[in-house]
């Protein structure tokens, strides 16, 4: 505390404080925006109706509402692409370590059996 009054802050310190302040402000704005989601929706509705009026589209307010609801229900929804060769290959790739471990295991087992047979340690 006393340091701040006695010695001037470095540029780096000032920048850090500004960064923190900006992050906090953005955080507050984000939260505020989320809390006022209804306001955002009604703005969106207004804008859509204005656009429809300008472009001469015959859109009712119920249709606009339905469109907005659909948009929000799909927002942030994720669906992995349906299986295809690329996707199968990608899945094999992301599991490469596990697949490699299994293959190594099999190889080691095969080598062990072969060795035991070669040195006559197995009965056949």
């Amino acid at each position, binding site marked *: 505390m006393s340091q701040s009054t006695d010695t001037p802050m470095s540029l780096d310190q000032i920048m850090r404080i500004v960064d923190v302040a900006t992050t906090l402000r953005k955080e507050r704005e984000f939260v505020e925006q989320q809390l006022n*989601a209804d306001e955002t929706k009604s703005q969106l509705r207004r804008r859509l109706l204005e656009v429809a009026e300008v472009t001469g589209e015959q859109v009712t307010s119920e249709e606009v509402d339905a469109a907005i609801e659909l948009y929000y229900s799909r927002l*942030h*929804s*994720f669906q992995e*692409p349906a299986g295809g060769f690329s*996707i199968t290959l990608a899945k094999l*790739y*992301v599991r490469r370590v596990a697949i490699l471990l299994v293959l190594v295991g099999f190889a080691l087992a095969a080598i062990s059996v072969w060795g035991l047979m070669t040195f006559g340690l197995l009965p056949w």
Partner: protein
Amino acid sequence: MVDVAPTGPAILQHLQHVLDGQRHNSSEFARQLQELDERVSELVQRKGETIVQLAQHYLPDMSSEHVHQVFGDVRRELDSILKRKHKRERDLARKIDRIVSRQQDASRQLESVTRELNEKVVQRERLENELTQHLQTNDTFLQLSERTIDAERRLAEHESRVIELNGEADRKLPSYQQSILFQYLWNRHYGTPEYNCGRLIRRLDDWVARLIDYRKYRPSYLFLCTTAERVAEEVKRRRAEFERDVSEMEGIENGLSAELGLDPILQTGTQLGEQRDAMVEELTSLESELEALEDELIELESDEGRFFDDAIDRLRKFLSETETSVLEQRAEQTPEKLDDEIVAEIGYLNEELDDSRESIREMREKRTDAEKLIKGLGYVLRECQNSDFDSDRCYFDPDFDVTIPIDRFLKKEIGRQTLLLEIRKRQHFHPTWVDKLFQRTASILNNETSRAVIRAVAELATQVLIHTLSNKQGRRNRTFTRKKGF
């Protein structure tokens, strides 16, 4: 002439008066029934003796001692049954008297407690009115109340938004969590500064990311994982701020309330309210006890009582042994005068018995009707007491004449529920101090915003009062603000 609106206490008093009248009628019928019973007993005894005389005259094979003995046994048994019946009736009557007397005492106490309570309510309303006026002039309280009213409304909206966000996350997150491609990239921190690996792997990871459009969905996943929690944190902080404001308002209100001396009034009022509730409960329980005893008394007097059954059995047995008709036929055949006189006496006694029995039947019907009316009126009276008819704020339409529905009930044109409904639909309450305050303020202030603020302050003050009452060691509780009556 200006009609004066009947008050709740006046209606209660009238109902009580009618109920007392019916109780008096019922006990008068009971007294008359007892007299008739005694008359029948006497007639039966006389008839028995006359039959014995006749039997002695005509049945020479039957010794006089034998006839006396047989009839004596029957009479003793009948007497004993009758005595038991009378004893039980006396017991029940004594119990009923005791309960009626307790009821009267409890009603008197209830009246006195209600009177005291009404006085306290008037004092409380006056002080609360003063308190509200003080609060209206307190700038800090006004600012806080305006802020808290707005904050509470917004908090409710925000809390529902948090629920909405949690629901969205629950719906949408599983598809991210079930995708092994997405989870692979997420766990490797792909697309963040923490992501670090060789060129080949990076290229292959880029290829996987393109396949599932990872760069587009990563922010969405992050949003779904963190937003609800972040928003909930903020709502929690705002709720704490709101609670602080409310506490501050409570502090101001408590200080003023203590200055005005409202607390002791509320405390006494609470105690009186509790006392009143206990008395109403006691009255209800006494009423049910009384009903049970009166039912038993009616059963004793009816043809279905156990004493009646015992007496009938014994008489049947006796009559099967002594056929009076045989004796009467024989009297007609003989020239002697004595037996004709005895038979005439029996005929007279039979007529008297028939008349008395008819009177008893009529009296029983009257008694049963009176008891039904007592039950119905008792029920209506109890319901009225529970509906705060004894409150000073309770009044009825000026043209309402309670005697009309009561007369219809007494004439059995309407039932007890209809009577209660007829009375209740004409019942009103004078406005509370909050309503009065609002009406007065609304007439002075034309400005819509000012009116809204004043009303909000008044409502908030009420809420704060009730809230504080319920929280503070019985200083105030809802018993005192009894239903709509207070």
